[in-house]
């Protein structure tokens, strides 16, 4: 079994975190295969990108100079297919990202490999590759197999696997792409960075959110300061935004913003009204602090406490001061 091929992503000179996580995911499978773990980086020849992918478990990093650092799905597809013909991997891995979704399925269709996306677990069961994904807003999980497919292409969910912390001793090779006309399909224009002014709940990974349970709007500045010290985004439930005490951009909920990329949501003094939950109940890790043990937020939260919100503020301030 010849091995695993990982296609790395990068932007603005650094490797995307997910590519490293995939290495972590794949190295666990290597023992099931008897093969090597390859990483391919398409770039403008920047060797530092290859260095970043030299992680524990990687056997070879191939840097292909395609004359550009910008993701171009047609280039990626052509190059990856050509490299795959040479290396003949059994498993081709992408991140389930904007880039991954733009080319992984295309490669699978062009080659006829097995294919599944947004994978959260991979196992070998009886010599067969088994991939797991979730569906229906996480209520269901599917276990997938790929009989008759000697080659399988998968896209891997981010923030699911652990990236290796240790450097590897991969061999680093450089290739110049000699092949068909590159480009033509896509012509890069520019990148537009998101506006940093103001608050963007939808892009916040950690949110400290406050509700009426903090007793008085006068206490908001304290929580805002705590959020700033913790380097997390301040969110709130509807009343504060309505009263104009906090800008609307802070409001999490059905009529505010959905915390779509949030990984950790800390709700203080929020009871969990239906409209608020709409904006955050999907978050993987929710810590809810509410003096009312029957508050609906505890149905969505992973961790809960009935501590008093102001006392928690005191404790947080003390902690942050000391550190």
């Amino acid at each position, binding site marked *: 079994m010849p091995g695993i091929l990982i296609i790395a992503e990068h932007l603005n000179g650094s490797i995307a975190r997910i590519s490293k996580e995939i290495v972590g995911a794949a190295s666990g499978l290597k023992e099931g295969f008897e093969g090597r773990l390859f990483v391919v980086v398409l770039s403008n020849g920047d060797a530092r990108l290859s260095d970043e992918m030299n992680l524990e478990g990687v056997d070879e990093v191939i840097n292909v100079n395609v004359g550009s650092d910008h993701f171009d799905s047609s280039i990626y597809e052509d190059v990856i297919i050509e490299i795959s013909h040479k290396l003949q991997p059994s498993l081709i891995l992408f991140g389930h990202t904007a880039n991954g979704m733009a080319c992984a*399925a295309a490669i699978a269709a062009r080659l006829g490999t097995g294919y599944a996306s947004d994978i959260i677990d991979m196992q070998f069961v009886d010599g067969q590759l088994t991939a797991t994904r979730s*569906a229906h807003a996480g209520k269901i999980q599917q276990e997938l197999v790929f009989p008759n497919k000697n080659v399988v292409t998968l896209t891997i969910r981010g923030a699911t696997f652990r990236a290796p912390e240790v450097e590897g001793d991969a061999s680093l090779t450089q290739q110049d792409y000699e092949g068909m006309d590159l480009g033509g399909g896509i012509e890069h224009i520019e990148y537009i960075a998101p506006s940093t002014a103001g608050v963007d709940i939808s892009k916040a990974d950690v949110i400290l959110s406050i509700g009426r349970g903090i007793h008085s709007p006068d206490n908001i500045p304290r929580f805002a300061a705590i959020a700033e010290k913790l380097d997390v985004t301040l969110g709130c439930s509807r009343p504060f935004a309505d009263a104009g005490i906090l800008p609307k951009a802070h409001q999490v909920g059905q009529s505010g913003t959905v915390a779509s990329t949030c990984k950790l949501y800390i709700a203080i003094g929020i009871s969990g009204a239906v409209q608020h939950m709409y904006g955050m109940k999907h978050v993987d890790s*929710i810590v809810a602090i509410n003096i009312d043990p029957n508050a609906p937020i505890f149905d969505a939260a992973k961790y809960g406490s009935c501590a008093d919100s102001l006392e928690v503020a005191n404790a947080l301030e003390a902690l942050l001061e000391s550190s």
Partner: protein
Amino acid sequence: METRELFWSLDSLEIALFYMVGVISILCFLYGCWLHFRKYQNVRPASGHIAWRASIVKLFSDLLSHRTLVRRDKLAGIAHAAIFFGFIFAAIGTTIIFIDYDFVQPILGYSFWKGDFYLVFSLVLDLGGAALIVGLIAMIWRRWIIRPAKLNYDRTYSEAASAQPAIQHWRWEDHVFLWTLLIISISGFLIEGLRIYSEQPEWARWSPVGNLVAQLYAAAGLQLHTADVLRVWGWWAHGVLALAFTAAIPWYKAKHIISVLGSLLLRDTKPLSRLPSEPENAENVGVAVISDFNVKDVFDFDACTKCGRCHEACPATTTGYPLSPRDLILDLRTANAKPSSGLIAIESVIDERTLWSCMSCGACQDICPVGIEPPSKIVKMRRNLVDQGKFEPLLQATFTSLSDVGNSFGESPRKRSAWVNELEFPVKDIREQPAKHLWFVGDYASFDPRNQVVSRTFARLLKAASVDFALLHEGEHSAGNDIRRAGEEGLYHMLAEHNLEQMNAAQSFDKILTTDPHSYNTIRNEYPEYQDVAEIEHYTSTLVGLLKGGQLKVTKPLNRRVTFHDPCHLGRLNGGYDAPREVLELIGCEIVEMPRNRDNSFCCGAGGGRIWMADMPGEKPSANRIKEAASLTDIDCFVTCCPKDLNMFEDANKTTDHTGEFTVSDIAELVAEAVELDRLSISDVPSLLEKIIDKSSQIVADSILYRLNAGLGLHSNAQQPEAPTQLTETTTKSIPAISDKVPATPTGPQSFPKESSGGTGLGAAHEPADVIPYQELHVTQKELRKMEWGALAPVEAAVLPTYDLPEKGKHRILVAVKHVGVLDDDFQITGSDFGALSGSFDYKINEWDESAVELALLLSEKLGECEVVVVTVGNEGSESSLRKALAMGADRGVRLWDDSLVDADPITIARGLAGVAKQEQPDLILCGVQSADLGYGSTGTAMAAILGMPHSASVTDCDWDGESRLILRRELEGGTQHCFSLAAPAVLTIQTGSNQPRYATMRMIKQAKKKTIELVDGACLDDGSSGFVVNRVYKPVTEKATMISDGADEVAAFIVKKIKEVREG
């Protein structure tokens, strides 16, 4: 003989001149009236419910009693009465003289204007004239010295500049009107005084005011010949001025004298509480141009006297929203100046934000002394805005929710009665069993957690009082009151029809009860327009009956000081002021009224659909109201009897920080306290026993079944009982970290999943609930096409049976959409594939695909001559999503299906869509990035590869001139956008958020029914081109919150730790 000479000192020429002036004046007056009537002819006839006889009686009764004018402004009411009656007497007096002099005398040869009649006449007119002067002076004083705020026309909420010309005109006419009348009246007395001074008739005291003036002249030593001269000039001046005033009546403020007759006469018997339906065969939906209004509306525009009472009463105006009913009416009047004004578009006169500010509370129409009805006009104008798609996204989300699932919360209809589960007794289902009362619960009382508490309390009160009641349970949809007032008439109709069908199909009931004034209003007043409906009672009336009748006994009178807030839809709109107060008295509360109570109650701000819209800047009406309550001395409780009120005022109480002073409670909760509900036994013992027996027998049966199956080595598909929740931080079998996993020993596809430790013997360890044993794989196994290096198996577009399609025009865009099911929380897995997920699904169009459709429509509108075709791979039910896209504006639909496709993976779907694309030959193919149910995020990209087309994923913006290149932006992780150009034709997968999919009104949905959907057989798709096979499907373990310490220090440390974990991955 007591009389006076009419044309003293005038020769026949001068009399003729006078008559000529008179005739000109009357002609001018008539002409002015005629111009108005011509305007009225361009609008629709009066609709609405006018009871003519009663209306005429009410007209006279209201005018003569002046009851509508003394409300909330006694000074203005009395002063106006003085002016009104004084003016009427003067007018009648003049008419009498006219009749006597110009008809009776010449024709019949005698005069009646003499003798005692003349004396009484003189007295009445003098007193009337005096009253007129007093009234006018009072009004002038009020306008110039007192300056009430409601008479200030300045607008704080909109561009003052554009309204200035009109405002200047209004101020001018206000003063001209008063001063002119005053001058006419005073000059009249001055001249009368001159006459009396000169002629000294014996009966002078019968003209007391004139007599007084004459005595003043005497005291001043006025020369008689001077008096004569003054009298001549004065007479002409007074006469011409009076005739000029008469002529001018229809041209300015004075016209209210006539137009008010129209506005009062044409009053609807139930304005706002029963809205008018749309007229048949109307060209526009609602009101788009002035001529879409009706006769009553235009009378209303002309009748407004700018008294400002509505301006003062309106909660929107008071809290700084961009709406004043007075300004709305006046702006429409200004716009409707000419007969040709019928063509003027409303959007050039009234700002959208003004129309959306209205809370449908009815305060304006309630207080208007001349019967103007602004709210129904606003609703009619909103109907047109809705038809044009001009409303905010939040409101659109509500429309969509109501139309998809019949409630505004976006919750599955199956959850509508979930609130009853916590009751100690079962609640009857009217669809199965008859009951005396049908309790129509309403959205908020069903879904909102705070109001669910009230619902349960009321349910327990009914139970304690042995009231026989039942619910429609899942059959109930929102009554539709507010959606109607928000202007979505078609959706209202759909909801009302649904509820009526449910009630018709249900078992028998006598009466309907409700805790929701909004539902109460529409079922009571508007549903009967469709068919007869049972009588409906608001629960406050029910409670009065139960308390007075003894079914609920007050054992603990509350002895509290409370204030009561009259809900708009119960009080003002339906006259229900007394029942709640009676209840409060019966339970021992002392009612301290807020200054604005009963008909003057101040709206909480949630009505008219505003609860579904973003707040406008400024104070919230509910905060304004709470502050009013807080100004009362020492009240314990603010009492509500409406679900929306409870929400709004509890919130406001917290944000205005008055929670320490008084609580906000629903009246049912107070009653529950007073009757000590928690001490009464209300659970049904027999049914509790039943529940226990059911539950234990189920547990026994399950356990036996499991062991049998395990023992026999069979795989049962019975669902296991829930595992005890293992609450540790890291247990989720759903997302293990691969790096520390050891590959499981190969056990073959037919073994039990690895989590089971107990093997297959009897007495096996209890299997965790997340793993449902699957069926034999050979039942569901599909074959995949073999692929290996050296023998590739590229996926090809399906060769589908050809179907009819029109010849391609300039451009064609193909959009792939999916009909996705949202899985309910209580579902069961009965097999290993998705087709066997027997659970409840709520279906709708995938929202990413909706954005794709919207983009296609925007592009096609820009390009012109572009056909938008929507395609789906789905069963018959999926046609509703195609229809939705067609209603939005797509031209044609294609549905590809075969039953073998029920589990199709994205590669197979892409193959099919590519097959359709080969026939359609589109210039652009769009689909959503992913679907909300399975979220593969792959179909579009796979389709592009199969077709060999350029492609991009996660596109947020697309600029296309129809030629060979697209300028695109796609969204990367972290929010960065990547701008680039791509060759066309191409396949794009579209991200949500870059556009707001347009709302398809009921009207557009109806029209779309004529568009075609072609059905294509997809049997050839299932040839093994799939990318995967599903081995099994299972429910992952979910957890309730793990409770960590209540100690603040531990919690703080925990929070910091969690943040670190996430940040460091």
